[in-house]
Structure formats: C-alpha cells, structure tokens
C-alpha cells in the first residue's frame, strides 16, 4: 500500500484548503462543472459546434440540429443505458445484436398484431437478454466482456433464424411508423422518446439509491458488498436496462424505415461505447454520467455531420474518430495516474 505517498502531499493541502474555508469548497464545486479534466468533452464539443456554425451556414438550422438528434436516437438511448452498465463495473457488447433482434421482432409482430403490442414484445425480448447478461456476469461470474460477446452471437443467430436472412417489411402497416415518423410540437416522437429515456436514466444514475449503488459497485465491488450493497442485483438492473434500451433503439429504427433485418447494428455496440468513452465515462467503472454519454455521442455525430456539410472525404472521418477515441481513453488513464 502506498498510503504514505498518497496522503503525504494531500494532507498538507488541507490547512490551505481549510484556510480558504467554505469559499474554497464553493469555488471547487462551481469550478467542478467546468473543470477541464472533469468536463472533458464539453469544451471540445462547444468548440466544434461553434466552428461548424461559423463555417457551414446550413449547420445552425433547427432542421439540421433536430435531424442530428433524431438520427442519433438509436445510439443515444442504448448509450444512456450502457453508461449505467459501465459505471457499475460491467460492459455490454450485445447491444448491436439486441438492437437487430428487437427490430426484427417488432417488425415481425407488427405484421400480425397491433404495433404497440409488437413494440412491447420487442422491448421484453431486450429486457430478457439484458437479464441473462446480468445473471451470467454476476451470479455465474463470467467476465462481462466474454458473456455479452457470447450472448450477442446467440442473439444474432436467433434473429437470423427468425428472418431466414430476409428483410421484414411493414410497408402495409403504416401505424408501425408512428413511433418514429409522427411529430409533436414540431419535434419527432422518437426524439421525445430519446429525451425522456435519457433524462430518466440520468436521474436514476445521479439521484437514486440504485444509481449510487451502481457507482459503488463499479468503483469498488468488494467495499460495496461489505457496506451492505447488493452488488449483483444492481449490476443485473444495469444490464436489464441496457438490453431494454438497445431493443428500443432497434424498434425506433425499424419503425422509421418500416423494415428490419437481422444483419443490422453490427457496429452499434462499438459506436455506443465510443460515445460513452469519448464523453468521459471510465471503462473501468465507478465513474461517469449519462449526460457525458449524450455529449460524447453527439460529439461524434457532429464530427460526422461536419464532414458531410463541409464536403470532406468521409474516409478521414473514421480516422478522426479513431484518434478521438484513443485521446479520450488516454486522457482518462492519464488523469487516473495523476490522482494516485
């Protein structure tokens, strides 16, 4: 234990900090919001936003901005939920597979029953996969990376079997498109759903006991358990939410194009993880926030949108994204290093 090293410089800080008294505490709380290290992606996001607004006239229009958000609905919703998984110390690679299966299931059931029931059934499937992920990674102690990779194969396989590899189309069931194509107060329903889910999950993580326990489980599972936290239960909840959210993403996209296929979403898990990590949530667990993932996902979306609007070669987009990802994770590792 390097107790001595850690406490040495810090202990002597305290008189100084105490001398500042409550103003010091207040200042740090106020600054905390914009503290570069903790704020992470916020400043680059604002910077990129300003650059795009200045260089590309069509960028700063209500249509373009709403479009970006709406296009990201099926990434933002899973990202918000997967943030809870990461914070509680897990990782979910089955997002893409669940997204595809749920899309296929919703499209299929919408052919034979009411669209709302079809959507509910698809979400239940996502919930079930999430529960399996949660149980396998906690009670059976299988590493989350491996467990969710395994379920993603199984789930993909089921989706392929169910469709026989064909696209399911719902063009004769226009009611199924209500979820993604209708508008309320000039904003698309799917955007409203996204907003609701993101706010709800953000609230869950930041303000409820469950959220606190997620931070505890991810930060130090052993300590959390000794303090009486049901670590397994909390992680299962996170996985269940992640599965359900991935399913919702799949349903929204299926509803938008009135069709679904089992090969969709193959890279979704990685896009979602990239957004979360770029936002500043640690892949090691115990740290992060839903709003960060939202900013991270939108940041990546802005990069893409910028490439489109400015007419840059889209091949560079991937390179830029890769570099961003390494930068984000490197920054996380670096700040951890500096703190210990």
């Amino acid at each position: 234990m390097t107790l001595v090293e850690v406490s040495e410089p810090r202990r002597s800080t305290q008189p100084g900090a105490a001398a500042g008294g409550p103003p010091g505490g207040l200042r740090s709380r106020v600054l905390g919001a914009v503290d570069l290290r903790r704020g992470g992606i916020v400043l680059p996001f604002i910077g990129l936003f300003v650059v795009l607004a200045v260089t590309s006239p069509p960028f700063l229009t209500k249509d373009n901005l709403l479009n970006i958000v709406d296009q990201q609905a099926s990434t933002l919703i899973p990202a918000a939920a997967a943030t809870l998984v990461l914070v509680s110390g897990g990782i979910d690679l089955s997002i893409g597979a669940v997204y595809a299966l749920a899309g296929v299931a919703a499209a299929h059931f919408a052919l034979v029953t009411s669209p709302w029931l079809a959507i509910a059934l698809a979400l239940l499937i996502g919930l079930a996969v999430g529960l399996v992920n949660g149980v396998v990674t906690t009670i059976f102690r299988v590493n989350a990376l491996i467990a969710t990779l395994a379920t993603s194969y199984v789930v993909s396989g089921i989706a392929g079997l169910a469709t026989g590899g064909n696209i399911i189309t719902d063009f004769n069931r226009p009611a199924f498109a209500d979820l993604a194509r209708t508008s309320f107060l000039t904003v698309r329903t799917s955007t409203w759903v996204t907003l609701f889910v993101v706010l709800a999950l953000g609230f869950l993580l930041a303000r409820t006991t469950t959220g606190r326990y997620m931070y505890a489980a991810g930060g130090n599972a052993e300590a959390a358990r000794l303090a009486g936290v049901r670590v397994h239960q909390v992680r299962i909840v996170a996985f269940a939410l992640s599965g359900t959210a991935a399913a919702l993403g799949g349903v929204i996209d299926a509803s938008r194009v009135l069709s679904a296929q089992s090969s969709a979403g193959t890279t979704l898990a990685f896009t979602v993880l990239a957004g979360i990590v770029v936002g500043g949530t640690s892949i090691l667990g115990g740290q992060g926030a839903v709003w960060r993932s939202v900013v991270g996902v939108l940041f990546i979306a802005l990069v893409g949108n910028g490439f489109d609007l400015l007419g840059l070669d889209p091949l560079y987009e991937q390179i830029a994204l890769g570099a961003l990802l390494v930068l984000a994770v490197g920054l996380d590792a670096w700040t951890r290093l500096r703190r210990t």
Partner: protein
Amino acid sequence: MPEGQGGAHLELRAVSKRFGGVRALESVSIQVSAGSVHALVGENGAGKSTLGKIIGGVITPDSGEIVLLGRPVRFHSPREALAHRVATIAQELAIVPGLSAAENVYLGIEPRRRGVVRRRELRRRYRELCDAVGFGVPDSAPAGSMRTADQQKVEILRALARDAELLVLDEPSAALGPAEVERLHEMIRSLRARGRTVVLVSHFLREVLEVADEVTVLRDGRVVRSGPAAGESEGSLVQAMLGRPLEQTFPPRVTPSEGAPVVLSVRHLRAPGVEDVSLELRAGEIVALSGLVGSGRTELAEAIVGLRRSVSGSVEVAGSRLGRRSPRRLLSRGLAMIPESRKEQGLLLDRPVRENAVLSVLDELSRLSYVRRRAERRTATEALRRVDVRAANAGVAANALSGGNQQKLLFARVLLCEPEVLVADEPTRGVDVGARRAIYDLLTAFAAEGRGVLVISSDVEEVLGIASRILVMRSGRLVAELEGATATEQDVVAAALLDPEGLAGVAGMAS
C-alpha cells in the same frame, strides 16, 4: 573515495521538493554514515517516504544536492540510482509470482549463454549470494506462494545481487507479523555487519530504536533533528514528531459489567483456515484476536461475517442465530465490520467522503429510491463530526484523506448502522501515531455504549492496551485466552508461537 566506517555514505544538502503547490520537503540536510542503519521517522505527511524516494531515485528533488561517497549525484530514476549502488525496496513488492526465488533475484541479469539461461550457474550464484549475506530463501517454491517476509528477502537479495551498497527500505515491517519482524531486524543487522548502509523508513518507533544507529525525525517536511539513535526513546521521538508530547497512548480500558449479555456467540466454526473456533463476546467488551500473520485471525473474521464460506458451526448475534451470512444480512442483524484493507475492501476512493459515509444507510435516507440529499448531507456531517474526520469538506474524494481520516470515515459508516457488534480488522494499520489514539477512543467509546467489539490486530502492544480479553490464534485454532489487564507481551507472543513446528505450519498457511 574511502568509505570507512563513520564516513558519510550519503549526504543531502538543502533538498526541497514540492508536489503541485504542496511542500513535501523543505531544505532537508542529513548525513547517512557508511555502514550504518539510518532511520527516517515522522508522522504520515511529514515527508519521510518522500525523502526515502529521493534517496532511491524514485523522485527527483526540485533543489538541493545529493552527495554520494563524496561526489555529487543526481538520480532521475531508480535505475540510475542502482547504477550508483543505491537500491530501494518499496512497500509494494515487485516480484514475479511465477518465478522462483533465485530467478527473481537474477531477473534481467541471468547468467546466460547465447540467450539461454544457465540454470545451474544461476542457482550456484544464488547460493553463494545467500551465504555471503547471511540469510536466504529456499529456492524451491514460486515466489508468489511465499510469505511476504520471504518475498521481501527476495527483493533485498535482488538488490544485493546488483551490488547495492545502500538500501532504502520503505516501511519493511508494515506487512509482517511479530516473528517475521524479528527476522527482518536480524537481516538488517546482518546487512550492516557486512558493510552495507541501510536507510530505514519506518512507522514503528520501537523497531527504529532497536535496529537504527542514526535517526532523522521529520515534521512537516523539515528535519527536526538528525543524529545518533542512542540517546532517543519512544517518548523523545514522538515528541519530536508531533512537536508536542503524546497524550496517553491508550484510553482507559473498558470492562463489561457483571452479567452483561452475550452479543456475539460463535460455536464450533469451521471454514478454510479456521478449525473449530468457539468464542463469545459480551456487551461492553473489547476482545482482541491476536496471533501471527496467517494464524487464521482474518479468516475467522471473514467466516463470521460470511465473506468466507464456513463448513460448519453457528454464529449468533444478540441471541438470534444467523443462517446464510452475507455482509448485508449481518448489517441488518446488527453486526458490522471494518475490513483489513481500507483501500481494497473499505472505501470508494473516487467518490465523495459524504457518499462513503452514508453508503450503508442510503436506503433510510431515500424516499422511493430518491436520495434525499439534504438528509444525506445532515446525516453525513453529523457522523463525520462524531468520529472527527478532518476533510476540507464532505464533497472531496475519499482519496484525498490521510490514512487515519480514511479509517475514521469507515467508523463513521459503521456507526451509522448502529450495530450491536463491531468486528475491526487491523483498525490502526497505516495510521500514524497521532491519529491512533483517536481510533482507540472510538473503539472504547463504542464498547462503553454497551456494544461488543472484536478487534483483530498484529500489534501486540495495541492488543494489550485496549482489550479486556485477548484470544490468541495459531494454525486456525484458538490456543489461549488472556486477561487484557494482566497479560504481558511475552504471554501473547509465546502463545502465538508456542511450538516451533506449529510456526512452520503457520508460515505455510500464510501464503
């Protein structure tokens, strides 16, 4: 340059070091005589570890001069220091668990021919080295399965195999049991007898007085005094470290009243590492579990609280028997535990102090799962004040607290659960002298409120100072029960060691 006995092996002149805006060392000047054992003492935060690290090249000073055998040197890494025959044995041991002792010692400098390690030559050199320095470790087992003490020896041998003349030992006895500490001291004396210079960074003043020739006392990054150890006593060192005389080390001993009810009863408990242990703890009583490292103390505590699955036996808290045990169930039945390792089992280091304090009672501070933050704040503040945690504010990360304050933070957490029984595993490990008394006060106050306290401790003095009863363990069994008020250190150590074969068995279990 001659390095005769008494000449300076190492001299620091006006060395200063800051971390960010914080002063860790301020113009420190000391002389370390060649062939001596030079101890660095001070409270946590006084700068003794920083000083040790500067000597070992782990940290580069901001200003000042380091003179080694008469020549000014500047180390930028432990590797450079080693090239000047200065080696550091850090608190965290750096052995390769899968390799044997000899392989670890010669790691990177293996005798080889065309890239192939000459194993026989390697073992021969290892034996020669062990003979030359007067101690060794059997080369049969992988280093990962050795006791901490042996792993430490491997590291010291490794430094010696690289011709180190000056060794910096950073808190070498922190993780050792009493008998192992004795052997460590022999080893240090043996190094000195062979002309090596040892810089010993240590918390343990008795150890310092026992083995050191010279001692430097640091306080707030400055040298209070530096000179021969002969004239020092524990009292004089503590006074120099704190800048004031230490109040009584232990609070008045608590004893349970006549006929106090039994709050914890363990019957015929068997678990891996625990052989048929029965014990009772009464309200208002502090019972200490003593014994060597690996004697089964921690295993027993873990079996009681359900961290370790027990094979048979029963545990009753306040008269009601507990079935399947888990920390959560036990908390709700009135048994709380302060684990051995604050950092690994106790705290959420990155989370605020406040969250750490209320973690176990968060459900009570919430409505429909929504955390009532005002109630949380009030409860946390109150609990932190009760145990006197000193933090800039309750919003800072637990990381930023000193060892003593982190420990108090854990007390705040368990006190909020209002348990009938508290099990505290090594409650003062890594806590400096000044804060220790505060922990003893907390334990005593807890017992005085009519609760039971089971303390597990390697520190025999501590056990004798606070416990009303002492249970000594060996090889997973309770082998002696002593009265805290009348027992002596000899009694406890004798019971812990008793027969030498038992010791060997215990040593094996430790790994």
